[in-house]
């Protein structure tokens, strides 16, 4: 019966529409279109009858190329976001807050100038000592701020790797289900949607490259380390490296940390292994060179007791900025005098010159610090601009994907009316045939 078939097919189409509407806000869902096909026509003698309609299946509308582009941009954006948010945190250490190195340098410098006018005032000597201690502390705080951002990034590495492993396990499972479905000739449909959604999440965690194979998707990191092959997943591991940070190992134990790019993982590694060590090394050089210049100036003079000036600052060989401290606790040990008498201020000029003379780096301590501020600011500003630009790009791509795969309520409503009308018409056909039949039966009786 053609009409009964039509009722069933239209009902199927209505179910598909209803499912589209139900999933209109489900992430990763691609709209499904019922596929109608007409049946073979029947020919009996000269009489030709239409064969009716069949619902051959539901087709998911997706654009694989767009999906790949979105995965790539998602990787880039997560990486840029990770860098940007880390740099936003880092740069607060360099903002003018009153406790930063610039403020401490200003105070130290102005107290030394004051010492020039009042060399024998113990209050002024004490203020030089205190502002020297504050300067050392400002170096400590800034270095600790950098180290703490580095530790945060390190923790992010461990967490992200464990998230990656969870996702790759799930993707491998779905891969297995999809290849079973395709083997039995069915479309992947919603399972494929779920897998695509997971792959996109994965690409937010690290840069991946996806290839379609006979047994489902093969997913590798950007440098070729396998993550998923068909229904098998290969988990990444982390281990503490010689630098004290977590290193990422592939399934066979090779260290792939430095080749990981993109995604949260790539961003965190970039910040932890490149950006922050760069800043720290500049800060350490500054602390070391300034301390040794100031100590050399101390050595040229005599303290208030007439003894040769001893070291003012102490810096450890490694982690200079974090470990910088003031070596003396008695203001009388500041080498103010150039001739050993208590009233001389002759060496104050040498002490002050340590701040205004170029260090071995070619810059004064103020210029050196100003350059670092400039660099941190530029990096933070670039990262944020970068993240915004990629975000715009991603928005465009997502819109494009939505225009292909997204559910349009207007369209579904129109279809609903269309299929409803068709259903009513088919029902009318059934009732008409029923009437015809009963007319015929009544004729007989």
């Amino acid at each position, binding site marked *: 019966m053609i009409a009964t078939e039509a009722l069933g097919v239209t009902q199927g189409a209505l179910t598909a529409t209803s499912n589209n509407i139900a999933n209109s806000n489900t992430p990763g869902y691609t709209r499904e279109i019922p596929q109608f096909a007409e049946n073979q026509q029947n020919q009996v003698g000269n009489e030709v009858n239409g064969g009716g309609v069949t619902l051959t299946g539901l087709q998911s509308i997706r654009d694989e190329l767009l999906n790949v582009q979105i995965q790539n941009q998602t990787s880039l954006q997560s990486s840029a976001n990770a860098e940007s948010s880390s740099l936003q945190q880092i740069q607060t250490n360099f903002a003018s807050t009153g406790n930063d190195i610039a403020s401490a340098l200003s105070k130290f*410098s102005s107290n030394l100038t*004051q010492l020039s006018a009042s060399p*024998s005032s113990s209050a002024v000597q004490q203020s030089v000592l205190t502002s020297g201690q504050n300067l050392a502390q400002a170096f400590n705080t800034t270095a600790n701020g950098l180290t703490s951002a580095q530790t945060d990034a390190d923790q992010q590495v461990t967490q992200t790797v464990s998230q990656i492993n969870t996702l790759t396990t799930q993707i491998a499972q779905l891969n297995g289900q999809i290849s079973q479905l395709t083997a039995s000739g069915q479309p992947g449909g919603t399972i494929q949607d779920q897998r695509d959604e997971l792959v996109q999440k994965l690409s937010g965690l690290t840069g991946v490259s996806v290839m379609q194979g006979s047994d489902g998707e093969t997913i590798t990191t950007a440098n070729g380390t396998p993550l998923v092959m068909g229904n098998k997943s290969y988990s990444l591991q982390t281990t503490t490296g010689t630098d004290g940070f977590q290193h990422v190992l592939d399934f066979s134990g090779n260290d792939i940390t430095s080749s990981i790019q993109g995604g949260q993982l790539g961003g965190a590694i970039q910040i932890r292994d490149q950006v922050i060590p760069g800043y720290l090394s500049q800060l350490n050089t500054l602390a070391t060179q300034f301390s040794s210049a100031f100590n050399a100036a101390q050595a040229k003079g005599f303290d208030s007791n007439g003894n040769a000036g001893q070291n003012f600052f102490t810096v450890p060989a490694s982690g200079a900025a974090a470990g910088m401290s003031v070596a003396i606790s008695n203001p009388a040990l500041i080498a103010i005098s150039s001739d050993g008498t208590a009233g001389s201020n*002759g060496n104050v000029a040498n002490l002050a010159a340590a701040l205004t003379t170029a260090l071995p780096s070619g810059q004064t301590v103020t210029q050196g610090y100003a350059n670092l501020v*400039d660099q941190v600011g530029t990096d933070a500003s670039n990262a944020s601009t970068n993240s915004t630009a990629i975000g715009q790009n991603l928005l465009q791509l997502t819109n494009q994907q939505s*225009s292909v795969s997204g559910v349009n309520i207007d369209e579904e409503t129109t279809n609903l009316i269309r299929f409803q009308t068709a259903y009513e018409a088919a029902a009318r056909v059934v009732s008409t045939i029923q009437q015809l039949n009963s007319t015929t039966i009544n004729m007989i009786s």
Partner: protein
Amino acid sequence: MRVNSNMVPNVLADLQQTQSTLNTALQEVASGKSVTVPSDNPSASAQMVQNSVETANVDQYTQNVSGVLSMVQTADSSLSSVVSSLTQAISLGTEGANGTSSATNQKEIATQVQGILNSVVSEANTSYQGTYLFGGTANTQIPYTASAASASGYAYNGNNAVNSVAIGDNLNVQVNLPGSQIFSNASNDVLGSLNSLVSALQSGSSSAIQTATNAVSSALSYVSQQRVVYGNSESQLNSQETYLQQETVSLTSQSNSLTGVDMTKAATDLAQAQTANSAALAAAAIVLPTTLLNYLSPPTG
């Protein structure tokens, strides 16, 4: 072409952008600063590091100038009273050398000159805020004390060094002259010549009095010459004070132009950001709820 009907991501992106512009504009107006973190303007932040160090130094240079100026003025006024004391001693010496003076008169004059000597010694021991002005850099101990061993009757406890105080980048001003140079110089010994005059007046020898008076006279012109050092320092300090005032003004204006906010512009920006944000919100309110369903009558029965 099929059109993307899901406007939520676009609307959200627009709202976030206008909101962020609005926040920035609001923060600028509220704080009066265009730069709060280095990324707001990296090069201005870097220049502000330099600016804050220079500003702190210029403030302190200004304080040094006023502190040193009053110290130098105190020293100069001490020397000025030494000059008038010496002038008085010379006229007393001339009076004592005059043949009409009796031995009694000469004794009286000797007592007066001794008084002048005492006041000169007291000026030489002038201190300023606990620092002896004429003791060289050994300025924590009293420069001149009575000593029978010394020819002039007074021993110098200071040294020959001078201090210079920073009043600018690479600019120092000399703030003291050691007493050994002014009061007990070997060739023009102020204290020694006064002491000799006292002895000469007590001895009553006209020629000895005349010689001693001449020595005091040459010491006087020497002290007057030395005062020039303080005069120079004073004029250097005064002109540096003017320079530092200008420097303060120019550093403040640099700081304003680097991190300050042009209020007119900031207020305009704020108003614009507000308009843009309201427009985005209004657009969202119109666009988001619209579907075909709004125009279909609900299915009946």
